[in-house]
């Protein structure tokens, strides 16, 4: 066996290699710079507002006195997003199940997939507009602005995200599981409910959490549907406060204390969404490992 020499790499190519890899690393770091800057700015502006009272008192609207906290906004966001999830998740998962189990590659299924994809791209403000012209001005349900109407706008936003991610996860459930279930004599619905769904559950939960995170941060749909109020209310049939709306309203006030409240609210909102996102990823990782 003759020894064969491995030629050293042409130094020009080696340089190109190193430069390109350096460039890729540099761009990657560039991508992270905004994150650091935004978080730093949020902390700088909003940390001063954070206190126990901040979370437990309502905004007072007072210019000369104590500006209060953001309790009503937190409650409002949680309730409206919660209701939006209650609307969007069953429908989204239902559509995903239909696509995977029944529709498959049929023309109807392809059409539905296309339209769901389209919905992902529709700007949130168009949803808010739609709800405004169909539900708010018509005084549907006897009210003009109402928390639940904001939830409807958010649900429209969440629906395509939930459907899409649920479909991806349901497709990943191995067919062998389904076949085993059928072989044991289980009817279709039992298979879906008792075998497929549980297997896909972590992935679906991840998708739901990400959709919730997206909805919690949206301002535009709420501007025309839920309005802004100061007091805490648990009645979704009334106007409700929300963190994005409070931020948007207060950040431009001619009173520095109110502006700081807005930044504190922004910090709170980002923290909430961050936790949801990390939670979603954690569940995803654990399910992959198991």
């Amino acid at each position: 066996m003759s020894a064969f020499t491995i030629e050293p790499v042409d130094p020009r190519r080696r340089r190109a290699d190193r430069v390109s890899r350096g460039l890729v690393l540099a761009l990657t770091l560039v991508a992270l710079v905004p994150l650091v800057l935004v978080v730093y700015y949020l902390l700088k502006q909003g940390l001063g507002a954070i206190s126990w009272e901040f979370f437990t008192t309502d905004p007072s609207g007072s210019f000369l006195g104590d500006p209060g906290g953001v309790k009503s906004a937190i409650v409002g966001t949680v309730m409206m997003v919660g209701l939006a999830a209650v609307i969007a998740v069953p429908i989204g998962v239902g559509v995903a199940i239909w696509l995977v189990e029944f529709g498959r590659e049929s023309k109807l299924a392809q059409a539905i997939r296309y339209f769901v994809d389209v919905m992902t791209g529709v700007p949130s403000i168009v949803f808010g507009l739609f709800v405004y012209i169909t539900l708010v001005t018509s005084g549907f349900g006897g009210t003009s602005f109402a928390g639940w109407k904001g939830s409807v706008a958010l649900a429209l936003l969440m629906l395509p995200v939930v459907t899409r991610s649920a479909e991806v996860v349901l497709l990943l459930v191995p067919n062998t599981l389904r076949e085993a279930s059928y072989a044991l004599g289980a009817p279709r619905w039992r298979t879906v409910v008792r075998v497929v769904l549980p297997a896909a559950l972590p992935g679906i939960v991840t998708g739901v959490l990400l959709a919730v995170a997206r909805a919690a941060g949206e301002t535009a749909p709420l501007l025309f549907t839920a309005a802004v109020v100061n007091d805490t209310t648990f009645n979704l049939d009334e106007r409700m406060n929300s963190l994005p709306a409070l931020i948007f309203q207060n950040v431009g006030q001619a009173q520095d204390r109110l502006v700081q409240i807005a930044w504190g609210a922004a910090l709170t909102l980002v923290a909430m969404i961050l936790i949801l996102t990390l939670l979603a990823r954690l569940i995803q990782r654990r399910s992959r490992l198991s």
Partner: protein
Amino acid sequence: MRYSRILAVATAGAIAVGVAACGSSDDDNSTTAATGDGAAAATLSGTLNGAGATFPQPVYSEWANRFRDEFGVTVNYQGIGSGGGIAQFTEGTIDWGATDAALDDEELAAAQRKGEPVHIPTVLGAVTVSYNVDGVDRGLRLDGATIADVFLGRITKWNDPAIARLNDGVDLPDTDITVCHRSDESGTTANFTLFLSDYSRAWADGPGSDKSVKWPAGTGARGNDGVAGCVKQTQGSIGYVEQAYALQNDFTTAAVQNKAGNFVEPSLEATSAAGEGVRPPADLRFATINADGDQTYPISAVTFMLAWQDGCRAGLSRETATNVKAWLNYALGAGQEVAPELAYAPLPDSIKTQAQARVDALTCDGAPIEVPAG
């Protein structure tokens, strides 16, 4: 797997709690109609929803806070601009509106389809001409024609002879002027452009006076705060903002030449003087721009609340109509004393009396509204 199941159950539980709680309502916000044949309820309660101009937002916000403490009625106010206030008032999605510019004929006609809108002037505020120029202190002298030329884009540098002519001894730099104006429909804009139209033919024939105009030059920003931000961030900028915002940002403001020929800086006294120099018509659709008076600040704007002459016929509940009247009484009463603390001028007595008479005449289903003494 176990983790996700626990989480799923917890999430579902939280949502269930939320939905269940949705049935219960917070006491402060009950909007059940007051017990009522014709007799007024013993005390006031409920919620009032208003929206409109950002110009008076500081003072309305403070009033709402105190009104709630004193009378137990929650007043929600959203600063969406005068145009928004008029629109939502006309649509019926709010109980009372707020605007810096009285309804024009077209808007009046639109509103009259629902009922008769009543204009109640509340306070006067100064529209300052704020600028951010290194080395130039407050009190720069400007007249209407010059300001108009700046906003028309005809004067582009701070050391332009037109500005220098008015300001002997002031060292004006060779910096470009950046104009900051509103991008949304605004009563502040309406008042400011009214002033410009009075002093500049070119402005009156060109962009004209309206809540929103086609700006020949400059950067647009949303709300008084947006313009304030624009001025604050840009060297050599000039913009028009309400006095409260100028104070908050410590802006240098111009001394504007008034009808009497004097250069007056925006101050509480100068703004009040504008109110003294005006005699409003019966329907209270007026403006205090370019008012008479020696020491009047010429860009003083009066701002209005809008209410329905007969609230119940226009769609409000009896309780809401009563609350609106109580709120207006407060605005014209105790509220007037709060206004100066926020740099807004209270109404001069003559106008206040006229306004109070209109409030007293508000009706519900044809009968005068009785407001319980809170």
